[in-house]
């Protein structure tokens, strides 16, 4: 059997396996109506916060001291806040920021975690020792202490908040990816691919990644929710996204003083945070079940 045939056979086998997986995959998706609903909710939310301002053109940061804490009206569909700003416009603007922070922080965490975990799990040896010890260090510092120190050090610029929150969960991500890599590395077709002379990057991308991806996607989905909650927590402590930029977190924080006067101010951002994070979590759990039917 020539190398070419072996390679062809290998691909064929992999493809068959994938096709079968795909069929089963869709069957499983259909068994997750909640997950589908969550996905729809998220798409709607994203559309609302990104496309909404094209329809609802009121400026979110426009203050008006003579029109504070007003009830909903034609001019302000959800009324105004403590500085006379339009609540609906701020909910939308805050949503853009919160979702962006959540998604970008997840991307940062995922990227660093995948890279670190992947390298460690793939190459083993010294790389693994160094990377995984670093992971231990980060796991040993309670996230929030680390985030607190970093945000204090570098200020509350949105990029800082995103990177910091992302760094907050790279270690967890790296650990999972590392474990998957170690497992997958032992699979026959990966070893076969290596034996057939595939380069390291090619092997990792073509053969290992697809096996690791499901786990990563699940973690990513849960990670977005976690990141949004973390930003809200930071905002509560005055360390999150800073005004004049709105985020659901800092809106909630501001609203605290107005609980007696106008509780709606707290209800809107609180509700949006809860629904969004809930949707990401439900989606994550559904994905986990889809990818790993035994759960």
């Amino acid at each position, binding site marked *: 059997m020539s190398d070419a045939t072996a390679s062809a056979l290998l691909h064929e086998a992999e493809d068959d396996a994938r096709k079968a997986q795909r069929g089963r995959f869709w069957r499983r998706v259909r068994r997750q109506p909640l997950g589908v609903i969550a996905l729809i909710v998220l798409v709607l939310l994203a559309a609302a916060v990104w496309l909404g301002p094209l329809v609802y053109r009121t400026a979110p940061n426009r*203050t008006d*001291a003579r029109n504070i804490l007003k009830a909903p009206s034609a001019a302000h569909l959800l009324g105004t806040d403590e*500085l006379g700003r339009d609540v609906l416009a701020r909910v939308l603007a805050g949503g853009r920021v919160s979702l962006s922070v959540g998604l970008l922080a997840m991307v940062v965490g995922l990227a660093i975690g995948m890279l670190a975990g992947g390298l460690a799990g793939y190459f083993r040896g010294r790389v693994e020792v160094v990377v995984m010890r670093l992971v231990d260090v980060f796991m040993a510092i309670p996230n929030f202490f680390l985030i607190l120190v970093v945000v204090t050090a570098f*200020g*509350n610029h949105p990029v800082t908040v995103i990177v910091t929150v992302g760094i907050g969960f790279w270690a967890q991500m790296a650990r999972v990816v590392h474990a998957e890599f170690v497992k997958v590395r032992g699979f026959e077709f990966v070893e076969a691919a290596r034996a057939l002379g595939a380069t390291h990057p090619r092997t990792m991308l073509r053969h290992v990644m697809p096996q690791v991806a499901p786990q990563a996607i699940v973690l990513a989905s849960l990670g977005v929710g976690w990141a949004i909650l973390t930003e809200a927590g930071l905002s509560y402590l005055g*360390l999150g996204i*800073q*005004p004049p930029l709105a985020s659901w977190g800092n809106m909630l924080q501001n609203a605290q003083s107005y*609980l*007696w006067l106008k509780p709606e101010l707290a209800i809107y951002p609180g509700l949006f945070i809860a629904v969004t994070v809930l949707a990401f979590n439900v989606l994550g759990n559904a994905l986990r079940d889809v990818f790993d039917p035994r759960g």
Partner: protein
Amino acid sequence: MPPIRVRFKLLRLLTTLLASMAVVVASAQEYDPNGSLTFATNADPTLNPWNASAVIESNLINTILFDQLVRYDPTDLRPAPGLAESWETAADGLSWTFHLRQDATWSDGEKFTADDVVFTFNEAILVKELGANRASTFTPVDRVVKVDDYTVVFELNRPFSSLPYYLAYYSGMLPEHVLKGAENPLMVASFNKGQPVVTGPYRVGEFVSGAYVKLVPNENYWGPKPKLASITFNIIPDGNAQVAQLLAGGLDMVSITNPALLAGVSRNPDLEVVRQSQNIWYFVALNLDDERFQDARVRQALLSAIDRQAMIEAVLEGYGVEATGPIAPLLQAFYETDVAHWPYDPEGAKALLAEAGWTPGADGILQKDGQRLSIDMPTGQFGYLVPATLLVQGYWEDIGVEVKVETIEWNAFIQKAVVNRDYDAMLAWWSTPPTPDQSGYFASSAAVTGNNIPNYRNPELDALWEQGRAATTLDEQIAVYRQVQEIIAQELPYLFLWYPDMISVRNTRIGGMQDINSAANFQYSFDWYVKP
């Protein structure tokens, strides 16, 4: 119009009489001898008024614990006898003599004498290396000399007519016999965080870090017998949580930092809102090292662009008065309303700016010689500074000024705005003793390194401040400070916003409180009682 003055004096006499009658009635009435009060403070206090960490969370507790040479008169905040019974200044104004009470003792039974005053100043406040609180306000004092056990002389390097006012401003005396010999008398942990030896009506009974400080009557107090079994300060960092605790019945009195929280208070019929005037003025400082702001017309325009009345309604729920200068209405004798006012007038503001050469450019932003009127306005997370800054931003944008607000964490804000003076505009406040002498916030010598935040320099004003310090009669002082206020209102070294009221909410079961301001109230804590 002299009749008004006379009537005013009569009125004051009447209120004094009424107040003293009220006290008589109260003391004739029974009070609950087991009554205890619970207040809140936002962090672990430092029980040494001069320690650099002793700030807002400690000031009022220290006022109860540490008697001062001078107190505020609770009717008009003029200096009144405390540990010192009387005082006088020399004809040249270069020294003050204080005669101390002979019956005062420390809580451990030792006598309070001139040695304690000498020690507090010569070995703590005046030692520059120690960095004592408010040390810079005492720079006119060279040293304090003991004449006999109950007489001290403050030797000055220049006249300081406001000295008694400053001695009434969070200036508690320290015990020489306890702190002498300490490497740093301001940093003795067993004192500052434990059981300080004090001269006040109450002493520390129990200090549980992070939880509460409980004060109990000082058996050795020289004044009237305290009427409470204890005063506890619960440590609650968050203002919202303080109000929640108040509503839940766990606190007897809370100072409200955010007037929006008052909305919840009306839910509890046992609570009353007390509104007190205070010596605090909020301002926007423009960095006067920036030549764009050196033209007074630009400053006047930027102030007229701000609807201060609307801001007071929005941010303070109306609990404040538009400010005209650094001397607050509380200083009845000195406060001058007949000065330039700069009411809200955006059109007038634009016209003034046009006169100064600032006209709208292609992008709608005002420009002059190709330079845009774009203002960096950093702000810090503290009180209502952020919302107030955002409102100012809105008003300035209305007249074509670009404003970039950057909100940073409080400590970083101080580093940037105060230490480095790295800002174009910033909104903050000064809290001062009730004296018209506010030179520390305006004098050229206080620019760059001191409390003259906008780095304002005006030799004419500098001379007036010195004249005020040297003035020996009240009429002379009133004349000087009238001039000061006129110049300041015209020149606007700061854009004056408002004098906020101090709002506190307290349980109606409390009696004997002085409502003029909180510092004075806490100086007379021995009068407090719980109604039976």
